[in-house]
């Protein structure tokens, strides 16, 4: 993954997290309630460890799904499909954030999470951080879906993990600030941040989708900003060309 893309994701995460205090801000506050001194920081770190682990789990699956698509389809086609799908998903989430589109809400999930979270919050402070974080990571959230879409697009284990780790890390400042300071951001700022997130996400969605179509228009050289496509990365040289051939592997399947 390129530096530019990493930065873009980090900006999305930070912007998003300012708004997200509305929904998830209560958790970091609840997690270290009744804790004093350094163990308060420990509770916060455990909370973020749990949350990020859940993100990694979601991202790893999404990336794997993208990877499997690469295995069954010719490289360029898979890249295009994944880029378009990710772009569309992120775009529709952005449009929903901007108030243009209404997406169906997954109800029924709420009661399951309610069942899970209520007893967790009653646990001892030292241990509830991690578990609340794990469940929190699975709460329905458009920002998380956008990152998951990106992870699917990347179709590589490491890239998918890095993407989700960025999400986990970039939400730390705002959430920790909330926990420490109480309520550092006003509603107006949150609303502004949410709109900004919508705009940025829309741009990112268009860019991601464009990278899927560009090679078919023979324009990839003009639009080289985004790096060399999925599979391209700072981790290795000699990576797959745009569209990434499926990694040459023995077809080892693994049950599960």
């Amino acid at each position, binding site marked *: 993954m390129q530096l530019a893309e990493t930065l873009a994701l980090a900006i999305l995460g930070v912007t998003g997290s300012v708004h997200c205090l509305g929904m998830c801000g209560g958790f970091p506050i609840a997690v270290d309630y009744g804790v004093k001194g350094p163990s308060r920081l420990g509770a916060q770190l455990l909370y973020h460890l749990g949350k990020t*682990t859940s993100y990694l789990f979601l991202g790893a*699956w999404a990336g794997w799904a993208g990877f499997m698509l690469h*295995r069954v389809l010719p490289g360029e086609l898979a890249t295009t499909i994944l880029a378009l799908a990710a772009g569309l998903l992120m775009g529709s989430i952005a449009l929903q954030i901007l108030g243009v589109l209404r997406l169906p809400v*997954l*109800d029924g999930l709420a009661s399951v999470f309610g069942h899970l979270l209520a*007893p*967790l919050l009653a*646990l*001892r402070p030292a241990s509830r951080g991690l578990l609340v974080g*794990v469940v929190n990571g699975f709460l329905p959230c458009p920002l998380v879906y956008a990152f998951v879409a990106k992870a699917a697009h990347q179709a590589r284990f490491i890239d998918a993990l890095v993407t989700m780790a960025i999400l986990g890390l970039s939400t730390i400042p705002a959430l920790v600030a909330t926990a420490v300071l109480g309520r550092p951001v006003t509603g107006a700022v949150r609303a502004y941040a949410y709109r900004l997130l919508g705009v940025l996400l829309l741009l990112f969605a268009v860019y991601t989708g464009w990278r899927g179509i560009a090679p078919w228009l023979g324009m990839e050289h003009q639009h080289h900003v985004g790096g060399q496509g999925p599979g391209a990365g700072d981790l290795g040289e000699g990576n797959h060309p745009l569209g990434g051939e499926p990694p040459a592997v023995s077809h080892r399947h693994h049950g599960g």
Partner: protein
Amino acid sequence: MAADHCAQCELPLPGHPLRARVCGEECAFCCYGCYLVLRVTGEKGEAGAAQGLMLRLGFGLFFALNVMVFSLARYGEYFALPQTLLGAEADTARFNLLLEYLLLGFATPVMLLIGVPLLRRFVDEVRRLTFSIDSLIGIATFAAFGLSVRTTLSGGGEVFYDTATWLLVLITLGRYLESRAKVRTTGAIQQLLDLAPVTSRRLRHDDTWEEIAAEVLRAGDTIEVRPGEGIPADGVCLDGTGHVDQAALSGEAEPAALTPGTAVRAGTVSLDAAFTMRVDAPPGARLLDRIAALMRAARDQRAPTQRIADRVAGWVTPLVLACGVLTFLYWRPSIGTGEALLHGLSVWVIACPCALGIATPMALWVGLGVAARRGLLIRSAAVLERLAAVDTVCFDKTGTLTSGEMEVVEVVTAPGIPAAALQRAVALLEARSEHPVGRSLARWAGDPVDESLQQLRTLPGRGVCGEHAGERWLAGSREWLEEEGLTLPAALATLSPGRWVHVGWGDAIRGAVRLTEELQTGTEDALQRLAAMDLSLHLLSGDVADNVDRLARALPVPVTAHGGLLPDGKIAALERLTRNGHTPLMVGDGINDAPALAAAPVGLAIAGGTDLTRAAADVVALHTDLGLVPDLLDLARRVHRTLVGNLSWAFAYNLVGVALAATGNLSPVFAASAMLVSSLLVIGNSLRLNRGPRAGGQGPGPAPSPGLLAPGL
């Protein structure tokens, strides 16, 4: 807590319950899920062991998430090593081994945290030779884990850490959620007893009143009840008139008339009557107490549902165990103990495909989601399994089948009296009526056009009367009007059967109107659909038998009517049905239905019911449309079919796999691909439930999320 009931859900215990110490007390549980719930919720105030269990589940999940992340890395070389690090083939193998050790590190805590209880249960079940699906999964996960550890320690290869840990997490999480939702009938029983006040005013020997606790009342005491107060004991009214709200016992909104000599019952409420009564049955011997006792008895007889999966596992598990042991014994002479052990373990591993772990929860959870979208909240997945067996539906009348309102369907007048005159008289008499019949009449008659009557009076149980232009005007029962000296014209002597209100002024009865109860919207359609589903229908009502019979005859399908039933009568009717081999579903709305809802194999509370009703019911409907009842039963039957389909597939695959593994012919490729395909089949089959039946009229909504189930497992 009685020793023969589960400490969490209070259902009767199975033959060999799970025993554990909670809060320093020896407690028995019907299942592991209940144990989990009580440990977590029952003692959340305490530190220590209580919270430990929630932590186990939570930390187990945390580690299992990590296991899955790193297992994914190994799926089909998803983790492509960067070229710079990838020196040679040997390095890939070394890296894979590194991943395996990582997996081992993450999987071990899961096995210790949430696997050990299942393993303990397995050992327990082996000892008494009864098997549940839990122990099959328990043994298979440990076999898978053991096999994987051996592979890792001997240099790497095919490992199943993900399968082992995720089956454990799913099964434990499912049990936990299920048990939290189990019905606690005790709460409903207590709420029922709370209907009667806990204090009372008793007449002392010196003719003064004393305020006492109701429980010290004795038979023969005289007590006083004021308007608006609840009645603390059963007895007979000595002095005073007025109305009593009996809805809690009869379900009828119509207040009952109270006069000296009338029997009164605890749990009913005086509306406007200040009266004294003689106590015949003090607290402990009241009808209310007998009903509570019946509810307890019904709860005790209701055996915990044996889940379909457990019934099948009962014979599959020993078969699989035997196969594993035989395989080991068969191969040992030829290939040595170590290798033979591998063969034996792989039989156990293959015996528990992922599909088996998700076959039941998947179908049930999708079913619960579909029901919720239609406005039916089902208390637990076990209720959904029980609903599939329902072959009889019992309805309460007022508030459930009928709206409780009446409508005028027939008017007969004496010769020379226009109907409009009768209507005007009714409008005058009933303009300010509070009585349900009076209100319905007033609605039919419209606003009174001229001056109102003077000396308007309501006589409990008889009717209303007043004076107008020097004449007496009356509306009420024929008997009462005749007692008052009005003559009955020949035209009114024979009327069609039904509920008639006679109206008269001066010296004669001038006409009569017939009222019938309004059916809830959609009732007839719903009953026809139920009859088409081969269900037998019953009407259990607290209203007088005549009214109930009449209503039943007017319905479009055959319905057996049982009238004049107090709550204990409803329970008795349900028990008779159960004894005759039926599984009734009770549908009701009122407080008086709560005992029957709790006692029935399945109780459904219609919208608008009281807290008590909802507490007693297994299913709560969010609106009054009776079409929900056939929808619910249809859904339950489809879920059942899906469940059976899922399990048959999972077990069939299971047995083929066992056969191949036992003969040493199971190739890893077959195992892996069959596992994936069978899991997808189970998921796909379950999701088909979302495509609802057409009959309901309410189209299926968006697909519910399959919850926390990880796809592909």
